[in-house]
């Protein structure tokens, strides 16, 4: 079975391709990129997808998703999360281990992979825990989890405070060629904090989390990566100083990568005025200076990936006092629209650079397949309309949760279709 995605603008940063052409898929693999309008004799064996006026790119990869299953299926399931992913153009997502139970054992890893296979939307790559139950004490069985399919280790949301444990985790992860993903936060320094520490925390009387609470752990991780020779990935980097630390470390040859979320690129702590708990996430929305710096470092290639930190919560849980509501927002279905609206349509970042951060950038950071339209690669393809306008209506999300700070936003840029392994898994309604 062949599929011809015809007449779209193909952008594949992994091969520096940006041209109008046809993409031929055979079975579950990329067959070739063919010059546009070259005479392809239509056959009954070939389906045609008309991508005229659309952009055709490698399927997006999200390094940072919370699927909530097992344990909190009322917020999200692996199936609903994977369906939300493909609706947002993501063909691969990495599932953070803070489920109930924690993914700290190969049996949980296998459960996630089996459930994802059953669901059949996006590819799901589990991230295993660094420590048992993510308690920050004893190492989890990383090698077993890797053998079961885990692609990285992280105690996301429960930062490991004991630096000696981090050191051992890095040494051990290095032995097994696993990248350690760190949610950088000195939880003592940020104790009780619910928003960024700055003018708005002071104005609103909410307890602040200083940038220093993130930066001190970014710095610690960089020092330990240097000491151990292991690979570290800084999750959802949010302050200008953190990015500067990463850039300087790389110049010194330390193997460190980082990701940024669409909400940290689009919003600042000014959004908290009004106390909408859908503006509460961790790390918190930062200052306008931080936001501008992050965009600059997206544009110049310092930041490796855009990751959503998709964190579903039931609306009953979010309907609480601001300082008691849980941290986190959903992001899979708004990531492309927000990113294009805030970065591309403002002229701040080029389209190929944005695509790079959603495809080959994250693929390289975790050494996972995909992110490319190279001949023979898995046929994971996303087709989108960069100009289509739509208004965010959380009631229409495929995700089970509605906790977005972008409700009612008019966004420009929408997914048209998503293919995983050559199979159409999402098509936008006309």
């Amino acid at each position, binding site marked *: 079975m062949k599929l011809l995605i015809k007449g779209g603008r193909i952008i594949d940063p992994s091969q520096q391709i940006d041209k109008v052409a046809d993409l031929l898929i055979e079975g579950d693999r990329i067959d070739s990129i063919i010059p546009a309008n070259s005479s392809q004799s239509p056959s009954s064996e070939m389906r045609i997808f008309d991508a005229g006026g659309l952009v055709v790119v490698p399927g997006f990869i999200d390094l940072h998703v919370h699927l909530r299953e097992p344990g909190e299926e009322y917020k999200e399931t692996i199936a609903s999360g994977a369906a939300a992913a493909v609706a947002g153009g993501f063909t691969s997502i990495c599932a953070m281990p803070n489920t109930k139970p924690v993914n700290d054992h190969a049996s949980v890893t296998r459960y996630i992979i089996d459930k994802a296979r059953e669901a059949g939307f996006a590819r799901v790559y589990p991230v295993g825990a660094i420590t048992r139950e993510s308690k920050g004490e004893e190492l989890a069985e990383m090698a077993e989890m890797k053998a079961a399919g885990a692609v990285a280790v992280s105690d996301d949301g429960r930062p490991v405070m004991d630096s000696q444990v981090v050191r051992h985790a890095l040494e051990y992860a290095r032995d097994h060629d696993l990248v350690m993903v760190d949610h950088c936060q000195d939880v003592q320094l940020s104790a009780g904090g619910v928003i960024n*520490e*700055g*003018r708005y*925390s*002071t*104005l*609103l*009387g*909410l307890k*602040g989390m*200083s940038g220093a609470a993130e930066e001190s752990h970014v710095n610690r991780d960089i020092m330990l990566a240097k000491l151990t020779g292991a690979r570290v990935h800084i999750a959802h980097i949010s302050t200008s100083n953190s990015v500067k630390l990463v850039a300087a470390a790389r110049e010194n040859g330390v193997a460190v990568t980082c990701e940024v979320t669409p909400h940290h690129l689009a919003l600042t702590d000014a959004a908290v005025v*009004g*106390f909408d708990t859908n503006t509460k996430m961790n790390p918190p929305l930062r200052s306008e200076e931080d936001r501008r710096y992050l965009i600059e470092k997206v544009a110049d290639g310092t930041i490796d990936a855009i990751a959503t930190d998709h964190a579903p919560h039931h609306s*009953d849980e979010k*309907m*609480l*006092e*601001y*300082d*008691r509501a849980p941290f986190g927002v959903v992001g899979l279905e708004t990531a492309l629209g927000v990113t294009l609206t805030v970065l591309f349509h403002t002229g701040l970042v080029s389209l190929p650079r944005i695509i790079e951060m959603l495809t080959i950038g994250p693929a390289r950071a975790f050494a996972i397949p995909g992110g490319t339209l190279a001949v023979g690669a898995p046929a994971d393809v996303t087709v989108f309309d960069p100009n289509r306008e739509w208004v965010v209506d959380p009631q229409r999300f495929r995700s089970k949760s509605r906790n977005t700070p972008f409700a009612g936003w008019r966004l420009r840029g929408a997914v048209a279709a998503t293919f995983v392994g050559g199979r159409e898994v999402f098509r936008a309604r006309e």
Partner: protein
Amino acid sequence: MIRAGSCTRSATEMPFNRKDLLGIRELSVEEITTILDTAESFKEVSARSIKKVPALRGKTVINLFFEASTRTRTSFELAAKRLSADAVNISTSTSSVSKGESLIDTAQNLQAMSPDAIVIRHPSPGVPQQLSRLVSASIINGGDGAHEHPTQALLDAFTIREHKGQIGGLQIAIVGDIMHSRVARSNVHLLTRLGAHVRIAGPRTLIPVAYDRLIENSEGSLTICDHIDEAIAGSDVVMMLRIQRERMSDAFFPSLKEYSIQYGLTLRRLETAASDCIVMHPGPVNRGVEISSDVVDSARSLILDQVTNGVAVRMAILFLLIGSEAQ
């Protein structure tokens, strides 16, 4: 600059078109002045032998207190009753919050009782805002965490205006635990808006970051001082804030004794203030800690005037929010 006190417009000429009183930050100079002028006319009611007017007869006011409070709750209760409204008190021990009831359920249940106004005090900043979006009754912020305490600031301004004639041009020192103080935040908004210059002092551990940017264009109207003496020198008004013992265990300062020596207000310290300087405190007072007894009991102290004026100011607020449409 419009100066408070110079404005003679009465409440009837200057309507107060708000559903809620959530904070000082969103109030205009005209609205603040309307509240203070209205309070002036209500103050006389409390001095009568029959302390009651029928202005809010048939109205219901719920005092919903999720935090211990005697002064503010009693003040609101008296204010409602002196206006002939029915006042009901709900406090934490009898509320359902401890049973895990969510904000929306609390709101819907209260709404179902058709109150005209809900006075809410809550330890979490923003709860009055959140509730105001969920219920049609007027919400009055009776203090939300470290965010705002608008009625306290209004009664403080009323007291200052009563003694100084106006607020514009005054030098006002606010000293103590600035970080956890909603009273300080609301007062900074209110007093600078009315043209006063506010000086802030306290241990650096208890002054939150960017406090000098609490208000827009703070230049010339808000100063963070390095020492209490710098704040007090030449001040027309000194407002002391209560220091809470539990701050010690959070390592904000070493001991109450050291705090008292470094930041406590004494008569000796007051010598550098203006000769007619007045002293205020939102209460309850820790005698001998943030303020010495001889200051509390001195003629300069207006601490009890503040309490008296609190009732008048809260009567004015209730009247302006839920009384006007009945006329």
